[in-house]
């Protein structure tokens, strides 16, 4: 795992270029998909094609092999990297090639075919300009689509000027591009073998799709007489017509282009004549088009991924990079920290765990905070946070159990094989919070002593620069139990879920929620209920989270049966009930809680929409506020409800549009990630300090967001429900 020092160094050297580029791609994605009327339909179609193709993979591979062979090509299915490289080396050797030109292919990087060929004395030239920059610089890609995203124009100019010593020093992007084009252009026409990847391959006709913008993949195929396409076995889809949704989605989802300059649909061998580029006598059409075509399909762990019910979705990945660009942590550190041997970004956890193993996935898996912002961005709907959670759970179980002397009592969890101590501390925060309230204010004073902070820093890696939550002596549950319900003849009846923070720390927002609901004619009870399991889930402690889920549903079920709605203040807990529990509970139990749970503003919005009067609430006339919604709340499409209700109450609302505040539950407390968390938070700070925003009071829905904003700004933020209480 990257240390705080390594992350700091990456943010210093590469952070600015990474941030600018990924945020540009991400903004482009939002704009570009907004133009697609049938965006959601296309995503569903893409997902369904991939689901079916992976289910039917063995048959499709047989069909594809037959098709390619009848077209005159050769198919080789390689078990692993070494097997693939041996085959490719033989092809290159048989052709007696001195030079191989390559277009961009992540799969060829996975097998490290360049090294294998170079050992044989073959000159291997990357022709994608970004890949070529990295080849010259001897660096690794930092992004799966734009590999040199971490390099600025200045650093590329410096590299080229030093390495190639051109007559005139190169400076502008145009000059650098022209220089590279000319240099590579000469090498392409002089090469014998062209290696490409393949984004999709159709089993019906043997047509491969290559999605590119520079034109180098076209040249790589057109200028050589031996074409080797290297692709994972998961790239096969049934038919040419199945290409349609992917053609519309891949560029938009990735770099935010509606479509890339070139989508090559090649059914090799292609008819383009193989010409001698030095010939000044023979017309082009008089050259023949004798081409050899080899399709090398690579297993390298994929068929095992296919058999793994939790990792299987990884194979639906079309390598568009949406999960990288939409990831707040990736936007700060890029793929050199948030990546494994080959792949980077959220989905890389699935690829690297399946191809390389858990130890490689462990190097970066913690950087997924489970914020879920990649979920809606993914064109094939992969539940990337779940893959990260499952892998984290497996990594935890791979480790030795932590020191039981400190864990006993504090961590009454279900993790028999043990998660690391820090993960167990955060995963069992419910116990800490209960103790904290029971012994407040002594617990708060003790926690803030230098000695305690040092111990937390040393034993639990809790960063001393973070403020700790202050526990309230009277919990929300206690407060609610001590008062009578104020609503006679209620419109609706509800359980207000006492999430951990509302119950023990931010009790005021709980009281405000009770009052607001009562003002709108809702009878409210606040029964003691277990914590949702969000904390253990985010630490990869799935058994413990499942235990929480079962106990929560058990204690809420009688209320639901009694006709009460479940109203949730904390968005991350609401997302547990309506999203994550699907993975943890049986279908009936999940449906019961998911269908009856409402985020508090979603609920208020519904009440107002059904006739409750906004006059029952505290209203204003045009007061200006800034609202930061919660990442998981936005994924569930629930930001708009808060904005609408606040506007109904007379507020002038501006909203942030950063993907995440950076705190992400316990993430920002951990010493290794504190600075990254603050770097991510800095983007939110910038937005909240914009002209026209910096004078506004700030409201935010998530506990973590509130804590982060509190650390970022002078202005103390509040939960928006507190504005509504009379």
């Amino acid at each position, binding site marked *: 795992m990257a240390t705080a020092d390594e992350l700091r160094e990456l943010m210093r050297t590469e952070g600015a270029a990474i941030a600018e580029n990924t945020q540009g791609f991400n903004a482009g994605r939002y704009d570009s998909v907004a133009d697609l009327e049938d965006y959601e339909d296309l995503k569903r179609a893409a997902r369904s094609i991939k689901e079916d193709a992976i289910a039917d993979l063995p048959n499709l591979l047989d069909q594809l092999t037959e098709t390619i062979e009848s077209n005159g090509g050769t198919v080789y299915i390689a078990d692993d990297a070494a097997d693939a490289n041996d085959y490719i080396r033989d092809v290159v050797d048989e052709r007696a090639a001195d030079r191989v030109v390559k277009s961009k292919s992540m799969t060829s990087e996975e097998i490290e075919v360049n090294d294998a060929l170079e050992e044989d004395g073959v000159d291997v030239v990357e022709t994608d300009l970004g890949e070529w920059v990295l080849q010259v610089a001897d660096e690794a890609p930092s992004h799966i689509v734009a590999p040199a995203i971490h390099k600025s*124009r200045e650093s590329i100019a410096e590299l080229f000027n030093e390495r190639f010593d051109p007559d005139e020093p190169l400076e502008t992007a145009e000059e650098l591009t022209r220089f590279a084009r000319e240099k590579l252009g000469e090498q392409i026409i002089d090469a014998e073998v062209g290696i490409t990847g393949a984004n999709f391959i159709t089993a019906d006709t043997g047509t491969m799709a290559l999605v590119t913008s520079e034109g180098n993949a076209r040249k790589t195929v057109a200028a050589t007489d031996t074409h080797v396409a290297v692709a994972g076995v998961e790239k096969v889809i049934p038919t040419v017509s199945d290409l349609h949704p992917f053609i519309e989605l891949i560029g938009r989802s990735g770099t935010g282009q509606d479509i890339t300059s070139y989508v090559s649909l090649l*059914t090799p061998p292609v008819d*383009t004549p193989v010409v001698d580029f030095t010939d000044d006598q023979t017309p082009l059409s008089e050259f023949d088009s004798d081409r050899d075509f080899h399709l090398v399909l690579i297993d390298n762990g994929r068929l095992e991924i296919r058999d793994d019910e939790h990792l299987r979705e990884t194979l639906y990945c079309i390598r568009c990079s949406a999960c990288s660009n939409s990831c707040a942590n990736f936007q700060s550190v890029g793929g050199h920290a948030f990546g494994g041997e080959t792949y980077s970004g959220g989905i890389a956890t699935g690829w690297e765990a399946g191809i390389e193993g858990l130890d490689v996935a462990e190097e970066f898996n913690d950087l997924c905070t489970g914020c879920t912002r990649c979920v809606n961005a993914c064109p094939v709907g992969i539940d990337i946070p779940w893959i990260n959670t499952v892998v984290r759970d497996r990594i935890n179980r791979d480790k030795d159990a932590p020191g039981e002397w400190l864990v006993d009592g504090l961590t009454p969890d279900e993790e028999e094989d043990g998660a690391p101590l820090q993960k167990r501390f955060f995963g069992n925060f419910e116990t800490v919070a209960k103790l904290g309230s029971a012994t407040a204010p002594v617990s708060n004073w003790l926690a803030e002593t230098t000695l305690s902070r040092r111990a937390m820093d040393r034993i639990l890696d809790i960063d001393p620069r973070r403020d700790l939550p202050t526990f309230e002596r009277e919990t929300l549950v206690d407060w609610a139990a001590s008062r009578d319900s104020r609503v006679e003849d209620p419109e609706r009846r509800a359980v207000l879920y006492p999430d951990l923070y509302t119950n023990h720390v931010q009790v005021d927002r709980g009281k405000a929620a009770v009052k607001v609901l009562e003002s709108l004619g809702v009878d409210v009870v606040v029964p003691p209920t277990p914590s949702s399991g969000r904390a253990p889930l985010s630490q990869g402690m799935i058994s413990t989270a499942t235990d929480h889920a079962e106990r929560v549903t058990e204690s809420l079920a009688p209320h639901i049966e009694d006709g009460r709605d479940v109203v949730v203040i904390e968005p991350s807990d609401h997302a547990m009930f309506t999203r994550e529990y699907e993975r943890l509970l049986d279908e009936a139990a999940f449906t019961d809680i998911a269908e009856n749970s409402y985020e508090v503003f979603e609920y208020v919005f519904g009440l107002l929409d059904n006739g409750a009067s906004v006059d029952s609430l505290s209203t204003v006339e045009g007061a200006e506020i800034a609202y930061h919604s919660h990442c998981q709340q936005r994924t569930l499409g629930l930001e708009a409800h808060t904005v609408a209700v606040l506007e109904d109450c007379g507020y002038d609302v501006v909203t942030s549009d950063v993907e995440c505040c950076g705190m992400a539950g316990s993430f920002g407390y951990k010493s290794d990630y504190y600075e990254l968390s603050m770097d991510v938070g800095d983007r939110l700070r910038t937005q909240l300090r914009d002209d026209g925003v910096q004078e506004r009071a700030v409201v935010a829905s998530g506990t973590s967001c509130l804590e982060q904003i509190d650390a970022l700004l002078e202005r103390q933020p509040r939960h928006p429900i507190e504005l509504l209480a009379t």
Partner: protein
Amino acid sequence: MANTRTAFETSLEELGVTVTRTIESGLGDTIEDAITEPAVGVALDGMGAEGFSLAETPVTVDPTPVALREATTGVTGAELGVGDYGSLVLTMTDEASELVSLFVERHVAILHEEDIQPDMDAAVAELDERFNDTGGSAIIATGPSATADMGALVKGAHGPESVYVIVVEEGA
């Protein structure tokens, strides 16, 4: 049809691609306006009025490889257009249309108005049928080649830096 053509033209303009409409009899003049010499091309069978030939233009048809590399402009036909994207579907022929459209700085593509498909769905359906019949290949080309790998978006990476589309009007 007119709507599809207009959408196609609008999409092309957004991509920075110049598009000109012409009737068959004006094709030769339009090509001459569109090219920057030296220009090479592939024979445009069936592209213009019967008997139309690039031979009447300054375009060298079926050049040698060296002439191709020295050319500034490449003239080819396009099989289909895609209205909502401004894409061209370029086929790969044994007359080296792929080389002529790619190894040049400026690509002039000539397209029949009736070959403009309204959207990508229709274009892929058309290709699906053709590929299943004949096993062909095609490039869906949208705007000039481009790269953002050198620190800013630059038009003209390995492929053409500019694209010029001539639409031959229907029934004219």
